[in-house]
């Protein structure tokens, strides 16, 4: 609409309002990254200046790498979140295929179970999960692999129901003719799934993978419960610990926040289309 009108005063007001909100999302992040290159006393007195010349320092990053296990925390986060995303798409993919294509007695009840699963907030399952994992000796253990698995397990379960809802919606929209001809050529259901359904449903698998990854990567609550040993901490847990241990080292705080935000920002710029889709497709989940 309005394609034949010139730029009006109304347009100016609209852009002004939109610009102000854009500023509130861009500037704080720019500000914190900028200040991560300054010494503490400069952050507290001169935080709006661009860090050039004498103002510029890398000391905060040096401290961050020396004193915090930021790389191992990154690695732990990556292991947990990649595992969650991978297991979720495989298990949810298989279950969705069966729920869409097969007719069986329990189908309706299973579908309602899936929907109900989305309504359980993590608060309402975490204590029994902790008790169960601890009876299996998966928490408070010296083994890094086991404690990372202990975080991944409940996160997988927490993302499955959402993933199944998204994937069943998509698989239902696929034409059945391809599967019929594959069947005539002698494909088993497992082959039909892996050779036809998975390639066709790739975009929605990507959506689900991105959503599960980000949800797991950002989830502090589960990590607080299950990662009890300092050397096992993943990235959000490490950041949370900073407030209590290094509460007044503001330069270090700015540097660690930047170290967490910048990789996400870069990935976001390249994959934003899929990320926005993934996060809002998961609107019902949280």
């Amino acid at each position, binding site marked *: *609409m*309005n*394609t034949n009108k010139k730029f009006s005063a*109304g347009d100016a007001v609209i*852009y002004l309002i*939109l610009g102000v*909100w854009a500023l509130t*999302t*861009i500037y*704080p*992040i720019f*500000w*914190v990254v900028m200040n991560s290159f300054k010494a503490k006393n400069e*952050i507290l*007195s001169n935080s709006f200046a661009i860090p050039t010349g004498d103002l510029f320092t890398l000391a905060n990053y040096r401290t961050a790498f020396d004193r915090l296990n930021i790389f191992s925390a990154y690695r732990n986060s990556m292991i947990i979140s990649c595992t969650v995303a991978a297991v979720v798409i495989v298990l949810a993919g*298989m*279950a969705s295929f*069966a729920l869409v294509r097969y007719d069986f007695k329990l189908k309706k009840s*299973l579908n309602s179970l*899936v929907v109900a*699963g989305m*309504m359980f*907030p993590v*608060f*309402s*399952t975490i*204590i*029994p*999960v*902790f*008790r169960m994992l601890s*009876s299996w000796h998966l*928490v408070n253990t010296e083994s890094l692999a086991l404690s990372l698995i202990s975080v991944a397990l*409940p996160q997988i*379960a927490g993302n*499955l*129901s959402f993933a*199944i809802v998204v994937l069943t919606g998509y698989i239902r929209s696929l034409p059945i003719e391809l*599967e*019929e001809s594959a069947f005539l050529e002698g494909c*088993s*259901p497992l082959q*039909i*799934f892996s050779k036809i359904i998975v390639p066709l449903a790739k975009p929605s698998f990507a959506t689900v993978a991105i959503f599960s990854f980000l949800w797991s990567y950002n*989830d*502090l*609550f589960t990590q*607080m419960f299950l990662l009890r040993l300092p050397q096992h901490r993943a990235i*959000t847990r490490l950041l949370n610990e900073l*407030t*209590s241990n290094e509460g007044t080292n503001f330069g270090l*705080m700015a540097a660690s*926040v930047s170290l967490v*935000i910048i990789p*996400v920002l870069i990935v976001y710029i390249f994959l*934003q289309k899929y990320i926005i889709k993934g*996060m*809002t497709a998961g*609107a019902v989940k*949280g």
Partner: protein
Amino acid sequence: MGANIYKNKKPLFLFLVPAFAFMAIFLYYPFIQNILNSFKQIPELGAMDKGWNDPWYTNYVTMFQDENMRMALRNTLIMMVVTIIGQVGIAILLALLVDNIRVGAKFFRTVYFFPIVISATALGLMFNLIFLYDKGMVNQLLESLGRTELIDWKGENLALITMMLPVMWQYVGFYFVILITGLNNISGELYEAAAIDGATRLQRVRYISIPMLHNVMCTCVILGVTGALKVFDLPWTMFPKGIPLGETWLTGTYMYYQTFNTKNIDYSSAIAVLIVVLGIITAKVVNAIFKEKDY
């Protein structure tokens, strides 16, 4: 024909069992167990329970006498109102405005959505720096504008606002994207017809965009109020343990505190049950309100 392929039900188990076994063990069973736990005596997080409470509903009685719990409930209710008015309200305004511009819509979408992708923990640390008393970004800004006294953003008077502003700010973009998708789904012909009939821009928004968005807005409000019950990361990073003086408890943070700091495991299970019940009730209430409204 389609039914022929899938007549043999044997592979069904192979496909279904892994996912549903996972959910049964880590979702459905713990959920039921948690309800039972809230009626038991559990001395420690990893320890066996010592049988039922006497009377079995003790924890639910305590809850209504617990002042911190009352504070947590009050704050959570305020948080719900803030999310409806602040998040969804601002998002509607922004979405309607973006719907009316020709260039830059994609830019605004990208920029508005970005905070959701960042972990709330990192944002919590960032806002700690921004609202620092001596002197973070806001106080430095106010000083340069001529204010001589520093404002204690995390002090008793302002703590609640300082906690809710970042939570609100982070999720505006989320509702914005949902709403703008809804707006894009409205057929252009409707607007054209209205324009031919001489409707102004404002009239088109009022009589086409808003009524057509009714269902999407309902979804947003439900997501907002149930989301408010689940907020944890950002408040726990900025205001751990309800500081100052238990002013900033939310149901989620208080439940965590009861588990790890007070070690009252069965009581925190009861709080978790309350969170679920409140979620169901508020979702039903919002649904009922929105259904009756007719444009």
